[in-house]
C-alpha cells in the first residue's frame, strides 16, 4: 500500500449501512446485491475458494481481451468496494472460520443449489446456530423448495421460465431475451430488498434473524408488466410486439422510429395519436410533412385516438417514420419534449457515457486500478441520499487481498495463518 493508493475498499463512514457486515458467497445472482450494500456503507467480505478464486473471475469481458482473474470486467463491476478472503469451505477448518465470521456478521448471501448448502455450512440451520441474529439470503434459480428447486438454470432460463421472453420479441421470430442478463439483475436487486426488509424486521423483533428465500424465476415475473392481470382478467396471453407496443394483450401502435442517426422511441405513434396529438400534428404541418394528417377530419380522428383500419394506421405510421428519418434523434427528442411529447432516444453504451443529462448530474465516477496504472469510468450513484450518501469504494479486490486483515479480526495470528495456508484452508 502506497500513499498514492489508499487501502481498498475505501472507508465509508457515513453510509446508511455503515457498521453492518455482509458475507458474500454468491455467484452472478447475488454479487450486484452485495455490491450495492457495500456502496451503502456495509463491510462486504467476498469469500472465494483458495487457488483459483471465485469462478466468476473467469467471466468475460476481459480488460483488453486478456483472460486473467484480475482482468475480468465482470469481476470489476460486480465486486467493486468489497474485501476478498480465501476460504476452503470443503474443509472443516474452513467452515470453522466461516462460523466465526458469521458470528460477527449481519447478512450472509449465498447462491448454492438447494440442498447443497449444508455441506458448506451455508444452510440456515448452520448459519443461525453460529449467529441467531444473522440474515441468510439464498438466491437460487427457482427457490428453496418446489418441483424445480434443483433444476439447472442460467439467465436465459430465468428469463424464459419467469415469463419475460414471452412478452418480448416479435410474432415472426419468436421470444427474445435481453442480451444483458436481466434475470440475474432482477434476482440481485430483489435480493437486496429482501435483505433490507429482513434487517429492519430484525431490529423490531429483538434481534431475530431469518432466512430470505429469493427465486430468480419468481423475481423475473414482475417484468411481465401487466401480462399477469391481462391473463387473469381477459384470458389473453401477451406476446412480444416487435417494434410496437401492446396494451392488455392487444398489439398497439408503433413506438420505435428510425432517424437519420439511429432510433427514437415514442408512445402512440410518436404522439400523433391521442388527446395530446395536436402539437405534434402542428409540428409536421409546419415543416410541410403532415401528408394531409393536419386536415380537420384527420385531426379529430387522431385526437380521438382510433382505432384505425389497417390502411389508415399504415399511413399514420409511415408519415411519422418519414418525418423522423431525415432528422437527428437528439434534435427530434428535444423538440418533441418542448411540444409536450414524451420521446426518448435509443442510446448505446457510448451515448449513455456521453449523455449531457448524466454529466450535469455528475453521475460518473472514475475508479483507479493502481495495479494497471489506469483509471476507468464506472457508473455512479444510482440514487442521491442527502444525509448518508452512496459511495464508490474503489476497485474490486484481488484474490485473498484481505486475508491478513480479516483473519486478524478473528484473532488468528500470522503463524496460524501460515499453517492454514499450508493446509490449503486459505
Amino acid at each position: 500500500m502506497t500513499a498514492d493508493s489508499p487501502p481498498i475498499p475505501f472507508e465509508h463512514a457515513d453510509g446508511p449501512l455503515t457498521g453492518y457486515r455482509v458475507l458474500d458467497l454468491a455467484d452472478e445472482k447475488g454479487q450486484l446485491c452485495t455490491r450495492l450494500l457495500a456502496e451503502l456503507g456495509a463491510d462486504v467480505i467476498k469469500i472465494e475458494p483458495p487457488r483459483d478464486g471465485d469462478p466468476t473471475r473467469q467471466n468475460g469481458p476481459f480488460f483488453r481481451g486478456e483472460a486473467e482473474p484480475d482482468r475480468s470486467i465482470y469481476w470489476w463491476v460486480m465486486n467493486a468496494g468489497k474485501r476478498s478472503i480465501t476460504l476452503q469451505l470443503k474443509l472443516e477448518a474452513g467452515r470453522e472460520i466461516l462460523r466465526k465470521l458469521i458470528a460477527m456478521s449481519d447478512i450472509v448471501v449465498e447462491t448454492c443449489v438447494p440442498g447443497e448448502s449444508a455441506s458448506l455450512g451455508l444452510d440456515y440451520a448452520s448459519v443461525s446456530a453460529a449467529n441467531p441474529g444473522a440474515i441468510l439470503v439464498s438466491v437460487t434459480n427457482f427457490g428453496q423448495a418446489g418441483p424445480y428447486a434443483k433444476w439447472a438454470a442460467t439467465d436465459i432460463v430465468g428469463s424464459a421460465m419467469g415469463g419475460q421472453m414471452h412478452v418480448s420479441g416479435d410474432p415472426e421470430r419468436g421470444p427474445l431475451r435481453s442480451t444483458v442478463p436481466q434475470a440475474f439483475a432482477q434476482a440481485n436487486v430483489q435480493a437486496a430488498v429482501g435483505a433490507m426488509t429482513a434487517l429492519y424486521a430484525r431490529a423490531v423483533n429483538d434481534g431475530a434473524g431469518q432466512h430470505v428465500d429469493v427465486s430468480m424465476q419468481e423475481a423475473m415475473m414482475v417484468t411481465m408488466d401487466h401480462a399477469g392481470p391481462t391473463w387473469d382478467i381477459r384470458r389473453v396471453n401477451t406476446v412480444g410486439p416487435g417494434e410496437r407496443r401492446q396494451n392488455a394483450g392487444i398489439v398497439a401502435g408503433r413506438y420505435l422510429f428510425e432517424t437519420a442517426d439511429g432510433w427514437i422511441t415514442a408512445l402512440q405513434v410518436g404522439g400523433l395519436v391521442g388527446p395530446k396529438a395536436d402539437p405534434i400534428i402542428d409540428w409536421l404541418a409546419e415543416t410541410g410533412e403532415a401528408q394531409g394528417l393536419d386536415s380537420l377530419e384527420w385531426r379529430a380522428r387522431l385526437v380521438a385516438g382510433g382505432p384505425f383500419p389497417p390502411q389508415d394506421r399504415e399511413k399514420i405510421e409511415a408519415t411519422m417514420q418519414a418525418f423522423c428519418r431525415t432528422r437527428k434523434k437528439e434534435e427530434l427528442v428535444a423538440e418533441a419534449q418542448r411540444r409536450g411529447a414524451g420521446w426518448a432516444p435509443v442510446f448505446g453504451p457510448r451515448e449513455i457515457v456521453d449523455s449531457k443529462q448524466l454529466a450535469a448530474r455528475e453521475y460518473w465516477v472514475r475508479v483507479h486500478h493502481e495495479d494497471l496504472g489506469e483509471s476507468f469510468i464506472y457508473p455512479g450513484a444510482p440514487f442521491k441520499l442527502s444525509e448518508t450518501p452512496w459511495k464508490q469504494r474503489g476497485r474490486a479486490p484481488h484474490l485473498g487481498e484481505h486475508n491478513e486483515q480479516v483473519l486478524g479480526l478473528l484473532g488468528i495470528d500470522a503463524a496460524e495463518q501460515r499453517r492454514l495456508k499450508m493446509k490449503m484452508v486459505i
Partner: protein
Amino acid sequence: MAGTLKKPFEGLRVADFAWVGVGPLVSKYLADHGAEVIRIESSTYPEALRRVPPFVNDTPHIDGSGYYANFNSSKLGASVNLKHPRGPELAKRIVAKCDIVTESFTPGTMAKFGLDYESLKADREDLLMISMPLYGQTGPWASYMGYGHVLQAAAGFNHLTGWEDGPPIGTGVAYTDFLVPHIAATALIAALDYRRRTGKGQYIDFSQLEAGVLGLWTAIVDWTANGHEQTRIGNHDSEAAPHNAYRCKDGKWVVVACATEKHWEGLKAALGRPEWCDMDRMRRRWQRLNEQKEIDRHLGYWFADFTRAEAEDEFQTEEGFDGPPIRKFTTKQVVELFQSFGVPCGIVQSAEDLASDPQIVARGHYWPLEHSYMGLRQYDAPGFRLSKTPAELTKAAPTLGEDNEYVYRKLLGIGEDEYYELLADGAFE
C-alpha cells in the same frame, strides 16, 4: 413463531403520491410487509394506470384496471384535489402523520403545492422522502416526460435487446419500471434503518435513468475500459454456447444454454453424442462461441425434421408441400430430458403457463384478493420470502378515495360537518 413477531414495517405510515409503475411498486414492498401505505390520488387528475387496460369486462372504469390493482395491494386509498384551495393543506396534514413520503412527479410539481421536502420537513423533522422521476431533480432533461417504455431506450435496454440483424426493439414492456423500483426500495429501507438508529430523516433524489444503468451489467465499463460497445445479439450470449430458443411440437419454445463444460457434456449425453458435438472446433467454450450458428443448425435438426415423410403429408395439407418443419418433441419432453442431464433448459412461459406453473404455485406466489368492484383477482407477491416475517397481501387495491373517512376523520380528526363541507366543495376530487 410468525404470529408472535411484528411485521417488518408495522407501525410505519407512508404518504404515497407516486404513480404509474415505479413509485407504487416501491410502496407495495412496504405495504405488503406491514406499513400503512396511503395512496393519495385525485379524480380530477387520475393516476394514469387507473385509465389503462386490462379492465374487468373490458369496460373502462376508474376502479376496474387490473394494471393498477396489481401494483397497489395492501394499500389504503385517499383522494385530494391539490388545486382546491384547501387541497395542499389537507395533503400536508396527512404527511405530518406519516414517516415516509414517496412521489414520482416531474420535478417542481410537489413544490408548486408546498409539498417539497423542505416545507414538509418543517412539520415533521424526521421525515424520509423519496422523489423518483425519470431523470432526477436536476439537469437539462429534468423536465422531460415519458414512461418506462421510452426510458428503456435512453437507459440502453433497447440498444441491447433485439436480433443482431434487426432494430433495437427493446423488451416489449416498460422495462425500467420493473427494474428500478427494487433499487429505490433498497435505498429507502437502508435510509429507514438509519432513521431508526439515529432519528434522522433525509431526502432521496432518485433518477430512474441512473438506477436503470445498473442493469446494463458490464456494458458501460466494457466501453470505457476496452472501447468495445456491446450490442444486441438475439438469444445468443457472449459467454455461453449453445444459447438459444427453439420451437417445439406444442407450438411453445424452449431455451437451452451451456455456460460451463459440465453443461456441454450433459447436452452431448442428452443428445446421444452425435458426431458434430465431438468435432475439434466444438471442444472449448470459446471455440463454441465462434460456432453459434453451426450449433443452432445442428440443434435445429435435432428439434425438427425439415424433410417430410410421406405419412406426415396429410397433417400438412393446409401449409402445402413447403410448409413448416415437423417438430419432434414437446417442450415438456425436452425440458425433462435436458434437465435430467443437468443442462440449463426451460420453457418460455406465458402468463397462462405461469398461472398454473407448479413451482410458482408451490411458492404461493399468487394471492387471490376480493375487490369491491373487480371481484376476486390474482395479485403478485414479491420474488422473495422471509421465513419469519413473510409478505402478506392484506387487501385488494383501494378504490379511489376508499379510505377518505379513515384518513380525514380518524387520522386528521376532521369533524363531520367540515368533512362533508369539504366533500361537497370538491376538495376530495
